[in-house]
């Protein structure tokens, strides 16, 4: 990939995509696919489904680049997170998330020890409890803890004010602590 392309800001790439530039689209996809996949995976807990959501989101943008309106949307990633979250929620409504498949998890070469198994169980419990949280609380957690967005950015993605977001996170954490203690 030419250095010039890699240096371009998302906004510049989007303007080029609106002129039908496939190279700009390729750069944008390569730059952000992993980040949006991560978020989709958190919702769907399934690799294929998460990949489909990311693909659909990008293809929607390619098919109809006028969806991106620079004067209305402050930042591409903030706007696109919202699109991915909405697609995930749609998908989630259609299909119940699959239970974590042990084979699907990242392979660990070390011999299974009690500690590892315990951690494994803990992780599975956390995933289960997060999946049981109300939709907005789950979204707030995913955005702030997984994506590393600031509270302000996460609030923008969710279309709520900062206080509302903090309250969602607080409630989610309280619920999780209660449930994990039990």
């Amino acid at each position, binding site marked *: 990939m030419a250095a010039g392309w890699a240096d371009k800001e998302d906004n510049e790439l989007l303007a080029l995509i609106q002129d039908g530039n496939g190279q700009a*689209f*390729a750069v944008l996809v390569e730059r952000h696919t*992993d980040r949006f996949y991560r978020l989709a*995976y958190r919702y769907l807990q399934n690799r294929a489904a998460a990949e489909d959501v*990311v693909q659909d989101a*990008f*293809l929607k943008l390619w098919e109809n*680049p006028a969806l991106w309106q620079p004067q209305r949307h402050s930042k591409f990633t903030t706007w696109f997170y919202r699109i991915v979250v909405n697609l995930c929620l749609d998908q989630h409504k259609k299909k119940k998330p699959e239970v974590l498949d042990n084979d699907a998890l990242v392979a660990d070469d070390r011999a299974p020890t009690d500690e590892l198994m315990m951690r494994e169980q803990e992780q599975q419990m*956390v*995933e289960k409890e997060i999946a049981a949280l109300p939709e907005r609380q789950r979204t707030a957690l995913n955005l702030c803890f997984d994506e590393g967005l600031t509270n302000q950015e996460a609030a923008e993605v969710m279309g709520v004010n900062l206080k509302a977001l903090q309250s969602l996170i607080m409630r989610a954490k309280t619920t999780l602590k209660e449930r994990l203690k039990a």
Partner: protein
Amino acid sequence: MSDNRDEKLETLLRSRRLEPASADLAQRIILKARQMPQTTIPSFWQSVRDLFGEFHLPKPAYVLASALVLGIVIGLSAPQETTLAADDSGGVSIQGFLSADETLL
């Protein structure tokens, strides 16, 4: 105690496991996009220009001049008494005109 639990929860939340995406996911998306046409929504002015484009005249000045000349010719060749007089005393009356027509039949 509560702080410990908070910390532990945050650690758990930050170390959630993730199944990595296929290595070729980005390439797959790019390839798929290449096979899809883009749909663009034209702006208002673009739509207006397109509309006028439909009625595009190759030589507008000639067409306008021809239309003007044709209008003058038609105007001059029209009969002088085309309007019906308010009173039927002068000129051609409708009644007379119709009855003249009927006599032919």
